[in-house]
């Protein structure tokens, strides 16, 4: 049987730049940063007080922010609320711990997923591959539709990371930007910059509606982009950092091109993982140069919205679809003076407009060496 093609017909986002895809996209094009001081962390005297909060609060914000992104994506795709004959491919990141009036509220990520999945009548798949989870969820949904296992899928991820346990825990792992190294919270995360010092934790959610072109046409849905390939790999190197030569990321990008049946020359833009960690950015730059060459345009969004872990890849996929649709590539917020060892064709300062709908790789390289990348382009019948 010939594999089905897979298109995107709906997008939803909740990020540090606001609720909705428009808030995310307009903020990125304007070069805004949604990173700010977190007052409770300042009062507590934590070494890390910068982050990317979202304008949704409460002890159940893990569910709320996911539902906001899901509702927006379904609205755009013309899918009414309620049960849907679709697969649900989602990542809920790590467990959430929050203090409520009654004391500690601990919600396992699996519980959050179980609540969110109830509306979806086909497969329920919850991906847990660290920072690559959102990208992997979308890629696996793409694969399932391509194989004919389900006609439609909702995919993406959500995460509540801006809690004191994770601020302190990731500081202990030396992954986040400490205040002493990044005094300006809006510039806490500086991807590929010579002065980068780690990432800023963030909350967020990103959702995509995926289906076959035939399904979209029958429903009268607007096709926003096509998913062309999924690549995955594992570093097998270290639990906390990638190899500097980017071997795992390189294998992942090559796997993505192989899956899409395309060569490197067709890729115009990379939406980079770009966490702003010393070794992570080095490794990613090396992989991009090795596979896609030094000319491919590279941008990242974590300087603007922080690192929402399991939601990061999903939010970046939303941005990648917007790039395909509008031909505009947002600048990398926080990148002022590129590190010479991260030499790439960076999009800096202002958006870059493409003469045609670009093909975009959106890549995620997770802690523990879990890697995933997807390739998106304009749908051509």
């Amino acid at each position: 049987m010939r594999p089905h093609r897979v298109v995107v017909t709906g997008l939803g986002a909740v990020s540090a730049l606001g609720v909705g895809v428009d808030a995310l996209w307009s903020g990125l094009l304007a070069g805004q940063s949604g990173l700010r001081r977190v007052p409770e962390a300042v009062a507590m005297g934590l070494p890390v007080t910068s982050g990317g909060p979202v304008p949704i609060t409460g002890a159940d914000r893990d569910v709320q922010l996911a539902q906001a992104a899901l509702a927006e994506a379904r609205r755009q795709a013309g899918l009414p609320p309620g049960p849907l004959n679709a697969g649900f491919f989602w990542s809920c990141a790590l467990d959430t711990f929050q203090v409520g009036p009654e004391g500690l509220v601990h919600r396992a990520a699996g519980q959050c997923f179980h609540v969110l999945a109830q509306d979806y009548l086909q497969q329920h798949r919850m991906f847990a591959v660290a920072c690559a989870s959102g990208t992997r969820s979308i890629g696996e949904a793409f694969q399932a539709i391509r194989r004919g296992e389900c006609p439609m899928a909702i995919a993406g991820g959500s995460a509540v990371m801006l809690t004191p346990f994770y601020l302190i825990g990731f500081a202990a792992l030396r992954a986040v930007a400490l205040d002493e190294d990044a005094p300006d919270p809006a510039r806490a995360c500086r991807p590929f910059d010579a002065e980068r010092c780690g990432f800023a934790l963030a909350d967020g959610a990103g959702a995509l509606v995926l289906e076959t072109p035939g399904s979209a046409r029958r429903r009268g849905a607007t096709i926003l982009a096509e998913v062309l390939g999924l690549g995955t790999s594992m570093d097998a190197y270290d639990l906390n950092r990638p190899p500097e030569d980017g071997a795992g990321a390189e294998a992942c990008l090559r796997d993505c091109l192989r899956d899409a049946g395309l060569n490197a020359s067709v890729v115009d833009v990379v939406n980079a993982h770009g966490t702003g960690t010393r070794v992570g950015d080095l490794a990613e730059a090396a992989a991009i140069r090795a596979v896609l060459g030094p000319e491919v345009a590279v941008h990242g969004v974590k300087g603007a919205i922080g690192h929402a872990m399991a939601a990061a890849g999903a939010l970046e996929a939303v941005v990648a679809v917007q790039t395909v649709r509008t031909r505009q590539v947002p600048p990398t917020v926080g990148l002022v003076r590129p590190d010479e060892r991260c030499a790439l064709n960076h999009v800096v300062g202002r958006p870059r407009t493409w003469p045609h709908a670009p093909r975009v790789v959106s890549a995620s390289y997770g802690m523990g060496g879990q890697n995933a990348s997807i390739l998106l382009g304009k749908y051509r019948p």
Partner: protein
Amino acid sequence: MTTGLLVNGLDLVAGAVVRDLVQARHSALDVWREVRRYDPPAQAALYAAHQVLKHARDPAHTALATVAPGRAGSPEMFQWVRRIEAGWGRERAGDAIRMNPVHTLHAVDNLALSALSLAIGARGFGVGLGGAPGQAWSALDLLAQRIRQGPEVEGLVFAGDQADAEAGGAVCGVALLFARGGTRPDAVARVSWDRSQPEVTEPDRDVTVGLATLWQKVQHHSRAPRWGILLPPTLVDGRTGLLVRGELP
């Protein structure tokens, strides 16, 4: 080439269930040195995985699919959580906190997958699923897909879970090694599985219980030429049961 009743079947090569971490430590000190820093469900999953991987022809090129940990955490991690969260927003409450970074790892949902890939040098197909109902079977479905069609011929599904992460309750790790149908004449059985009609019920929260039950029943039937095992929805995902059929390879 696959022969017999189950033309799309996979060879179930080996399995292991680990419920006692102390006993596991004594029987595999080398693994203990590797896993001792991790939370109990990740440890249990890794002990089981290492036992079963002894039967793999090429561990580094084995596809990996895991739910480990299903419910993450350890008593040590929860001590930090309670101490830190209680201080949220309180003046200078963070001053005296010097958290052991190892305990951050106890919250990480892909810990066992990454640790195993590192231990055996696996750089190919690996997928981690989260601790929601039915995800052990999602892992198994993805693994089966991969070893039927992908470059890997063998695949390991492994999972670890616990009843109460904060109090340090009962823990279980399980691992099953599969191979493309017809490639392992020494397999315990050739198996395939189908979903039953939807029947909504409350699923068991322990992600290992379905796989452990399956392995226990397969061992019971291992000398029979053909057999079938019906796993009820409570052991699968709370929505569908699973009919597992098997035969001698």
